[in-house]
Structure formats: structure tokens, C-alpha cells
């Protein structure tokens, strides 16, 4: 089974203070570290596990700037055979534009595949749309929130989708198809610096995004960026650690959950 996996290099903003600049026109990411999108890490692992069992290859593809080569090397270190960078210096905020670029790329370059994996969403924009739009424009069956792959056959797969409240649904989906992989589906393997260095020796092909641009312009546009509305109801406990922790225990006592 040949699997295409999309992987994105994203800003790791968990513990970063983000600032908007140019009167709302952009978000300053100049001091923020970048990393592989968490969901894509699970997707690559899942794809590699499948080809380890069924044979075939995993091809990692990244749409992004030159720095995105980093996530391709990482994917190769995990077990992908090839890495393709579709190089673009601009950020696509419209998932429709991104998906149609991928569609054009796959079709023009005639890239063979049985299954396409994307992450459920990317950590930065949280759109969660690229897989679904891609499935629809390629005319292929699609499922998102894939939290388990129970069986892989030549012409179909049995998969589990994550719903709410701990519930899952098992579905049958025909191959070829597009699947968006949910975090937690597996335990991604550890990638060492040595492994990534070794992966650098595998040639990564670079393509120009402009050659595959969608004919239609973006369907949506960002008018401006804004900070969240501050609700600010929390009473902040400040001071020395002893004092703060003492206050915390005091609150627990007052609420009757701790003696």
C-alpha cells in the first residue's frame, strides 16, 4: 500500500506570548520556535506502521517554506521513503486554496497512491479542513477523526472514528481514500538527532507551489488579527511560593474538599 502523508511545520506557541503587529495585519512569530504539527507526527507513524505490515511506501509531502525541509527529514527518519517539498513562501489561510494546490500537485505530477493521510488539524490555524476538501475534490471517500485502523485490505479498510464522550464508530471505507488522523491513535516512535542526520542523505525533491496554484482565488480572507476578549474573572494568587500554596490549601478547605 502506498501512502501519501502531509506534514506541516508549525509555530510552537504553547508557552509563547504572541503579539499582533502592523495594526492587526500580522502576528509576530519571529521569536517563536517551530516544530512538526503534532497530528502529522501521529499520521506518519500510522502510515509507517501500515507499510511495515503490508509493504509499499510512505511519501511525506510538505507545503511550505524552505525550512519545512526539517519536517520531511524527520518523516524520513521515521520511515518515509521520499520527501517532497512544495515550496511556497506565502501562508495559505484558506484551506480551500491549500487543498486545491495539493490536488493539482498530485494530478499534474501523477503521484501514485492508495491512501492519503493528513492530520485532523494543524496546531496553528486549527481549521481541520484540508483532508475533507481534498477528499471531495478528488472524488474519494473521506473520514476524519480516525482513532484506530483495525484492518487494511487491498480494496478497503476498517477504521474507527472518534466521536464525543469516549464513543467511537467503526466504519468501512473503500481504497483509495483520504483519512485525517486523530492524535492519540498510536505512540509515535522516538526520532533521534542521529536518525535525522542520516535522513538528510536521502534526497528530497523540491517543487514550486506556483506551478500548481488553484485557478480560483481564496474563498475567505483574514481582515485582521485580534486578541481574545479578556473575561478576567480569576483572582490571581501572587507572592512567595509558600504563601501562594498556603492560600491554595486554604481555598480547598473553604470549599470543603480538603481537611
Amino acid at each position, binding site marked *: 500500500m502506498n501512502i501519501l502523508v502531509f506534514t506541516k511545520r508549525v509555530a510552537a506557541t504553547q508557552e509563547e506570548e504572541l503579539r499582533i503587529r502592523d495594526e492587526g495585519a500580522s*502576528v509576530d512569530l519571529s521569536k517563536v520556535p517551530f516544530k512538526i504539527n503534532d497530528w502529522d507526527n501521529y499520521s506518519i507513524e500510522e502510515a509507517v506502521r501500515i507499510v511495515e505490515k503490508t509493504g509499499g511506501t510512505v511519501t511525506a509531502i510538505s507545503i511550505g517554506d524552505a525550512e519545512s525541509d526539517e519536517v520531511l527529514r524527520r518523516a524520513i527518519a521515521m520511515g518515509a521513503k521520499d520527501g517532497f517539498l512544495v515550496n511556497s513562501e506565502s501562508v495559505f489561510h484558506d484551506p480551500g486554496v491549500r487543498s486545491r494546490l495539493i490536488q493539482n500537485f498530485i494530478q499534474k505530477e501523477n503521484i501514485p497512491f492508495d491512501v492519503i493521510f493528513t492530520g485532523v488539524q494543524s496546531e496553528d490555524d486549527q481549521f*481541520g479542513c484540508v483532508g475533507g476538501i481534498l477528499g471531495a475534490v478528488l472524488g474519494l471517500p*473521506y473520514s476524519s477523526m480516525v482513532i484506530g485502523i483495525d484492518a487494511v485490505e487491498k480494496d478497503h479498510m476498517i477504521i474507527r472514528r472518534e466521536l464525543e*464522550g469516549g464513543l467511537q464508530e467503526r466504519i468501512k471505507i473503500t481504497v483509495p481514500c483520504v483519512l485525517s488522523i486523530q492524535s492519540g491513535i498510536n505512540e509515535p516512535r522516538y526520532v533521534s538527532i542521529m536518525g535525522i542526520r542520516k535522513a538528510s542523505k536521502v534526497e528530497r525533491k523540491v517543487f514550486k507551489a506556483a506551478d500548481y496554484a488553484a485557478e480560483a482565488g481564496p474563498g475567505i480572507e483574514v481582515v485582521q488579527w485580534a486578541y481574545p476578549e479578556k473575561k478576567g474573572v480569576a483572582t490571581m494568587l501572587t507572592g512567595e511560593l509558600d504563601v501562594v500554596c498556603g492560600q491554595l490549601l486554604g481555598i480547598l478547605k473553604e*470549599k470543603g474538599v480538603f481537611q
Partner: protein
Amino acid sequence: MSYALIIAEVRRGVFEERNLDSAGIAALLGKEAVMLLPDGAYQTGNIADTIVKVKVGEEVFLNPLNLKNILEKVFTARGNPDVIIFTHSSFGMESAAYTAGAFGFPVVTDVSGYDKERGVFLKSYYSDKIFGEFKANGGPVVLSVRSGSFKEFAAEKTATRVEEIEGVAPVEGRTFVEYVEEEKADVDITKADFLLSVGRGIGNKDEIPAYEDLAGKLKAVLSGSRPVIDKMWLPKPRQVGTSGKTVKPKVYLAMGISGAFQHIAGMKDSECIIAVNKDTEAPIFQYAHFGIVADIHKVRDKLKEIMG
């Protein structure tokens, strides 16, 4: 005819409460609300002007490939809507994207606000640290709306018309097999009065025993947010959030949890929320009653030291 098409989310006979948010944004947009539902006896209330019942079962309706064929019939009969509204859930996220792709419509997901004057939709970026204000170029625009964001705007309609349309033949490319229930839990976190909940901020699995120890000393039950469950540091039945459990303890002590909305939705009704996080910008502080900006391991060790 100008209208908003609400794609109702139903599951195992239940009309999901978050459909109220879909009705709410339809009202904010000032559109006639037409709600699409599969066959079945659902408690919908009067939140739409028109209900269009499709003669298909729930599992057929909840499949984006079938939904595309259903929507084609609706558009042929009524013309295109101005907006197509989904819940931002497992079903809605999947089907909003597929619908947008199938018809070439613009899409904005996880919409949590709408500025009527400027006609822009608010969408979270970077786990709620920044919001993008989006405008659609043309339409109909497909939206998935964040649970809890618009329900206050849902208006009680005086009368709801009910229409029926014929179903579609289910596609073969994707078919429902069965529901799979969660594994049995050793402890029910929804019954606890006091939850100590840990998140990504704990750093690695080796820290778990020290938090178990703290929970033991505090007589709290240990739970976790999605990243902790994904990494298998705690079992799935201990997950707080939309894909895990919804909890309402007397005290919810969150350590190292930044507060993704899926997590907030699962604990926001707790009587008292205390958040400890070293990131002053963590969204969880917006929902907490008490907050401490500190290294969670230091707070953990100090609490243990004080308790002896």
C-alpha cells in the same frame, strides 16, 4: 430566497444541545432558519422556521458522502442558502470540510463570534491566543460553530413548519459498521468532588507518580487533558473534555493545562476552577476562579511539603 441551512447534529436518537449554537448564529445573521434532520423522533424544540426531514436513517445522514447527495436535492428544491451551518464536533468538522470541497464553497471552522457591523467571523488561532477575523468572498459560506458561543441568540420560533423530502441511496465508499463503547474505568471521574487534572505542562510520563502522590495526599481524583491521554500517560476514561468526560466537581484544580476549548467545554461548569500554569497567557485563566502563574512542579512539591 435568502436562508440559513442548519445541518442538525444527532446521535443515537439524541438531538445534540450544541445545535442551539447553530440556531443562534442563524438568528444573529438575520436569516430564515431551515434545519435539516434525518428521519426519527428528535426533541428539537422550536429553534428553526422550517425543519426539512430527510427520509434516511441517522447513520446515513451523518456520513459526509451521503450528506453531499442530500444537499444537492435541497439546493435544487430551495436554491442555494446564504450560509450552511454545522456544529464544530466530530461530525460537523468532518462534514463542513467535505461539503465545502464538494460544492466549491468557502469555509470557516470553529467560529466563536460574529461581528454584525463588519460582517466578519471570529476564528481561533494558536489555541485561542489569537483570533482571526474572516470575511468570505462570495458564498454560500460553510461554517462550523463552537459549542457555547451562540446559544444565547437562539430564538424560540412561534411556529415551525415541517417538510419531508425523499432520501438518497447510501454510497458504498463509506459505510457505518457499529458503535464502539469506551473501555470500563477503574474510577468514574464524573462522580468526584475534587479533581486534580494534569496537562501537557507536566512534561513527561515520569512526573505522573508524583502527581498521583499529590492527588492521594489531597484526597483528589487524578484526571488529565487530551495531550496526557494521547501520550498514554493516563488511561482514556480519565480524560476531561468533549472527546472524554464532562465533569462538574466542587473543585477542579488544573495543573499545566493551557485550556483548549474542547477541554474547557468539559469542565467549565465546575463550582470552583483553580488553574496553575507558567504561561500567563494560557486561555484557562479566562475561565478560572483562582489562578497561579508558576512552575507546576514547584507548586506540587511545595504543597506536599506543607502537608507533610
